[in-house]
């Protein structure tokens, strides 16, 4: 009896282990093919679509021998598949070429500007989640009420408004008219040379070093673009929270909790929201990824020296290496966030764990 029991357990464990291994394998294949696909797409955009990448670099007035030399330097005389192998090899070793605009390696540039974007998107997501979740819960609990309608309209406008336009108008109001926030940029010129950031995250560094005047200044710079991005994630998060909460509130365990005589507050915030929180984590991760994209236009409006501004500046100057490097990095971060949220979902939801 005991013997057969243990053998059944080991068999089950083995089956679980093998299915876990299969899952891991499938996961690895998915990730690898997606990254490979990102490389193929950027290679096509950079090398195949432009009529002549050489002309884009040297200009159309360059003498013939310069054009020929650049062509060989770029490896454009090789067959396409060899070019692709070289491209993949370089990209995987972090070599995205040199930026024509800044004359630095693109990888160095991206490393320098990326923390600014991360800082902005993180604060934006925090704002969106802190305001969006209670709003969504409120809309679900008071379904059909005025509050529900208001939350719905706030969300709909968030889905419909051009972010760069809202940014411009809010600059006029909060910077030019009310003087509540600082001029576009990341930090005041006064502090630009006295304050050294070690991690690239200005708010964190200023607080760490105890420079509270710098912290205050950085905060006055970051708050408007971050609120703007926060509004967009709020629109998404509140809508999804409402839908998840409606789903939970119609479950039987809520009826059971009510029958036990628990207070409505406790039922909503501890029972229903706790269960809705699992899919919400995925939503927040996805909205974070969305903000990285939204930052392209926001950073342009607020002169925020992040990856978005870097990409648009490079675009204006036909700096393809920088544009493609930035695209590839954002794509890779997207893939990373998707994988992360997937894993998080699996760890948080016990039902997916046992399978």
């Amino acid at each position, binding site marked *: 009896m005991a013997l057969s029991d243990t053998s059944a357990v080991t068999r089950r464990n083995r089956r679980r282990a093998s299915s876990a291994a299969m899952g891991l394998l499938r996961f690895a294949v*998915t990730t690898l*093919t*997606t990254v490979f*696909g*990102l490389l*193929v*797409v*950027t290679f096509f*955009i*950079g090398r195949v*679509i*432009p009529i002549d990448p050489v002309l884009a670099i040297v200009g159309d007035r360059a003498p013939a021998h310069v054009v020929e030399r650049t062509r060989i330097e770029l490896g454009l005389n090789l067959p396409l598949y060899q070019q692709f192998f070289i491209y993949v090899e370089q990209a995987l070793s972090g070599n995205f070429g040199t930026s024509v605009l800044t004359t630095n390696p693109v990888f160095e540039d991206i490393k320098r500007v990326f923390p600014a974007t991360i800082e902005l998107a993180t604060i934006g997501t925090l704002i969106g989640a802190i305001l969006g979740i209670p709003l969504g819960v409120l809309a679900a609990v008071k379904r059909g009420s005025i509050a529900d309608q208001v939350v719905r309209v706030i969300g*709909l*406008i968030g*889905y*419909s*408004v*051009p*972010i*760069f*336009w*809202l940014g*411009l*108008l809010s*600059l*006029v109001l909060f910077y*030019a008219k009310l003087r509540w926030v600082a001029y576009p940029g990341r930090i005041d010129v006064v502090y630009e040379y006295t304050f050294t950031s070690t991690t690239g995250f200005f708010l964190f560094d200023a607080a760490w070093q105890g420079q509270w005047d710098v912290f205050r200044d950085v905060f006055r710079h970051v708050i408007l673009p971050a609120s703007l991005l926060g509004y967009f994630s709020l629109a998404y998060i509140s809508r999804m929270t409402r*839908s998840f909460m*409606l*789903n939970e509130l119609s479950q039987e365990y809520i009826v059971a909790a009510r029958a036990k005589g628990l207070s409505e507050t406790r039922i909503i915030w501890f029972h229903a929201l706790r269960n809705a929180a699992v899919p919400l984590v995925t939503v927040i991760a996805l909205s974070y*990824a*969305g903000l*990285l*994209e939204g930052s*392209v*236009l926001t950073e*342009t409006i607020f002169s925020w020296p992040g990856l978005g501004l870097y*990409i*648009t500046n490079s*675009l*204006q100057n*036909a700096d*393809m290496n920088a*544009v*493609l490097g*930035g*695209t590839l990095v*954002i*794509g890779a971060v*997207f*893939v990373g966030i*998707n994988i992360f949220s997937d894993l998080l979902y699996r760890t948080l939801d016990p039902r997916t764990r046992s399978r």
Partner: protein
Amino acid sequence: MSPNPTGAAQAQPRPYSREWLLSDRPVSRRQARLGRAYIVWRRFAENRLALVGLAIIILLLLVAAFADVLSPHDPVVGDLRNARLLPPGSEGYLLGTDDQGRDILSRLVYGSRLTLLVVVLVAIIAAPIGLIVGTVSGYIGGWADAVLMRITDIFLAFPKLVLALALVAALGPGIENAILAIAVTSWPPYARIARAETMTFRNSEFIAAVKLMGASPLRIILRHVMPLCVSSLIVRVTLDMAGIILTAAGLGFLGLGAQPPLPEWGAMIASGRRFILDQWWVAAMPGFAILVVSLGFNLLGDGLRDALDPKEAGQ
């Protein structure tokens, strides 16, 4: 309803009346179709906001169609000497003028044509691509499915705006390239939807029946699978229209979409950016137009989804 529904002498309600439309035993295919459309319309019309959305879109279509009649001034050539940067409400210029002395209202009216052009062309390019990829992938399955879905996932992995930016950077700025770039980034969700839809009835009996009659896979996909995927695709495309408009406006704002002097709304905001502090209306008006139109598409899409798919309603 007649008290004796099985009776042979049951009187047919007057054609096109409410009873005729709602009859649960239609006598002709046309009656069944009209009846179904009537039910969907009633469900749609219950939703006030959806009607507002529909009104906005109809208004947009009318404005675009009658742009020549409606616009008081030339959208491209302005009056530089007398009418530069006039505020809204000036005589003859209801919404003011821009830095070239052009009437903003006229530019908005003509800009509606560009907005519609972008939205319609993107839908015409992206929806069929998604439909084909999704139905083929869902119906054939196996390796074709795996490969097509991997490709779809790769395009889904790119953020839309960033991929569109890179594509336009390579193709060169212009409204045609912007449309192409947005279409390339828009099809993957449609493929996903069409595939999911196809999977639900791939093994159903009516497909087996057509197969028995000797229909080729191509014919099955074209004549039997695709028509069933269309309605959910239409809802999704309508919901995406706002996003398409916003992406196009973003590209225009960055100078990668429609080129001057075309009155594209995003580009108009960009040109008003320099005067934003003193002549706010130059940038504010086109942005407001974008907001209203994309709100209209969002409301319409929400309403359509709720009307066509009651399961999702209220979620």
